[in-house]
């Protein structure tokens, strides 16, 4: 029901503001998005590897700043971010360790790339990236271009694709030429 309403709202919004699609309107649209758990499938292409790595699992987001990436294949791993706290649990290590997200500048920028986007928080995004938007409300691509030297040393750009108020895919383009493509599909539960 909620989905339908959102779809209607999204549709109405789209017709009303078709002319004025901008980063701000995209952010407003995303800010209305639901908290959700989605499945993902990630493919890592690297010149170091003979064939790409395939990973999959679930991504959970709760407003305003909780994000959890649970890797199911190939290994059971969980990355939980709540505010500034990052907890990494690896089945194979057996032990969880916790660190301050902000002490890892590159990872922090990557996390905000998704987390601030899901929250519709352009201000936070702009602290890390220069933003460029293509497309319209039904199919858009948001380019995140790192502005800090810490991240720019490793990452060339993050490309987010989506439409109708939803994030559909994320692509991380590394300076090395490697890239990781993550596709999000509908809710898991």
């Amino acid at each position, binding site marked *: 029901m909620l989905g339908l309403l959102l779809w209607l709202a999204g549709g109405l919004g789209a017709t009303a503001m078709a002319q004025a699609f901008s980063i701000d309107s995209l952010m407003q649209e995303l800010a209305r998005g639901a908290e959700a758990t989605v499945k993902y499938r990630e493919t890592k292409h690297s*010149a*170091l590897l003979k064939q790409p790595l395939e990973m999959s699992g679930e991504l959970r987001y709760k407003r305003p700043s909780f994000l959890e990436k649970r890797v199911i294949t190939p290994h059971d791993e969980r990355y939980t971010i709540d505010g500034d706290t990052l907890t990494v649990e690896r089945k194979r290590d057996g032990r969880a360790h916790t660190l301050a997200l902000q002490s890892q*500048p*590159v990872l922090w920028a990557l996390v905000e790339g998704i987390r601030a986007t899901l929250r519709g928080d352009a201000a936070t995004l702009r602290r890390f990236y220069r933003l460029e938007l293509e497309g319209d409300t039904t199919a858009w691509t948001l380019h995140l271009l790192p502005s800090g030297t810490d991240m720019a040393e*490793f990452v060339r750009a993050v490309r987010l694709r989506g439409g109708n108020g939803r994030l559909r895919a994320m692509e991380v383009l590394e300076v*090395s030429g490697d890239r990781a493509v993550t596709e999000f599909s509908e809710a898991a539960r």
Partner: protein
Amino acid sequence: MSARSRAVSSAGLVVAWLAVLGAALWLLFARTTFVADLTAFLPRPETPGQELLLGQLADGIASRLLLIGIEGDAPEALVATSKALAQTLRASGRFRYVANGAGELPRAEREALFALRYHLSPTVQADRFSVAGLRAGLEQMLDQLASPFGAIVRPMLARDPTGEFLSLLRSQQDRVRPPSRDGVWFDAQHQRALLMVESATPGYDGKAQRALQAFIHESFAQQRAGTKARLLMTGPAVFAQQTQDAIERDAHRLTLVAAALVIAILAAAYRSLRLPLLAILPVFSGLVVAIASVGLVFGTCHVITIGFGATLVGEAVDYPTFLFGQRQAHERTGDTARRIGRTLALAILTTVLGAIAMVASSFVGIAQLGLFTLVGVGTAGLVTRYVLPVLAPQPPLLGIAAGDRLARALEAGMVRVRRLAWLVPAALLLGIAYLGALAGSVWERNLEKLSPIDDADKRTDQQLREALGAPDVRYLVVVRAAQPDEVLAKFESLHPRLDALRDTGVMANYDSPARYLPSAALQRARLNAIPQASVLRTRIAQALEGLPFQEGLFEPFVDEASKLRNAPPLTVTDLERMAWGLGLRSLLFESGGRWIGLAPVGVVREPARLAQSVTEWRDPQVSFFDIKIESDTMVSDHGWRSLVLGVLGLIVIAIVLGVGQRSWRLVVRTLLPIVAAIAVTAALIVLAGSRISFLHVVSLVMVLGAGVNYALFFIDAPDAIAQRSQTTLAVLVANSTTLSGFGVLIFADTPILHTIGLTVVVGAALSFLFAAAWASRGTARAVAS
């Protein structure tokens, strides 16, 4: 002696005085080096722990460390300012190390550390390079590559497939680090950006430290452009500068006020302005000659010596008053000098010879002070006795005549005070009983209390220290050996035992120099574990089977690792210019030809058990210290030792008086009121909630010197009422100048000066009253009978 030859010898005296003064001034400006190293004023260390403590105070890494906070603007602005400031400071090359954040590990540092991974990583072992070991490493790196950390791991993967660099970084992870924001350290509230800087010059080099701090302030002023950010800076070197500045400020301001007051009192007493100016000559000559001789004898003159020495020589301001004040209408000054010669000589000699006990002290600061007093007071005395009569043969009289109102008022006052004579021995007994009952607890034990740093600065320092995870170290496990490598090897053998103590909860954590630099033997074992290139190449090929890595990808690893097989182990100097070396340098250093390693122990829950465990290891190279206990004992020993010096000085003074006065009853009459005044002053200090420290002792030694003079002149006062009133007035004027000169110090911002001022004022006032009541007693009786 004919008048003519007397005139010639007078001229000769003045010429000799000018020559000595000139030579002293030349020595002072051209030859004397002034030092401000606090340790000269701490007692000579008697235990290894005290030696360690003093060494660290003098040139420990702590003395080179500056803690910086930037606050007062939005976090984004602070981040930018912190980064720009760190950049400027690093580029200047004036610092061994500049750290401002976790993300900062500058590229140069990262690359240097990466190159040393096989020397330093705790996970380098023989099985690491077996097929199974390599396989495990490769699988882990594959996971890392697939993880959110992939982008960071990737650039070093081909050179470090077993992840030694990551192990190396991880081995430091349990250390407390401040939270960071955009890679810049912040305090927990994100209000203050934090930096930690280690200067390349030693902390005790005051001049260089001052220049360095000025450079930081200038760089900050340039970098903050347009923001509202403020700079906070603390650290031992900063405090040293601030203290010196504060004392100088106080000294400039208060010396002027004090001099004006003293001159005003003297000018009023003599109704002349020339006389007060002449009265300054002896003490000025005394100070100049004293500084020059300390420099000549000790090679350097300590700034603190001059400060305290000026206090001790302050007594000499009274000498001209005793001389001019007692001149009778018919006398020339030279005649007065001869008439009161013996008393004046005793007044001077008691102080000069009393200082000999200090000169003999084993600790440099006190010995310098002793010499300073001896020479300063001696010179002032000689100038008063021989030069002033020539310069002012017939100065204005201290205006008083028998029967005039002032004389009658003084006499009445003296009579009233004398009725209270019984109070003097009572006060002495009470004071001594009170202090005796408290015994050892009257001495200041806390080194902090002697610290001249004001509380607000202490708080800021504490905040920065805690925020930066650099808390004050209290408990230490210490290893001493002839060579640095021996120390490191010893620590490696202690690690399992310390781990055990940590795991049983005796303490929460410890640091160790061997974590930063393994012993040569361990490094060699690690490097030798690396196989030859061909072997390594075969094994990695086997380990790669079934993994998706490209063929030949790990050639850089094979190449770099196998080349290190026969590399020499790293030494302390190899890490000199790296941030990594900061940890090492603070925990491993040379002192007196031996190498000392420190393992600071954090959050100790059972200090007694820790101490006992270390004792039970029965290793002569290993010991345990509680720095607080060491410093407390040292400071209270200090108090005891100054008491011993004081008593020795008193005995010398008694002997000098005995020889001069040729009557033990007179000696007692002279000393009793002054010792009573000192005992009561000391008791008052304790009653007011303070404890007796070195500062009080120096002030009381000054009181002793001045007080004995009051008593001597009271005893020596002529019988005729008019002349006696004149002596009373002279002593009163001398006392007023002391009270106003030192009274001004009570208003000093510097706690040291305030303490000296207050102690001298109370002590000198009591000395005057007690001496008036007790010492002048006999004269009164003689007149009455």
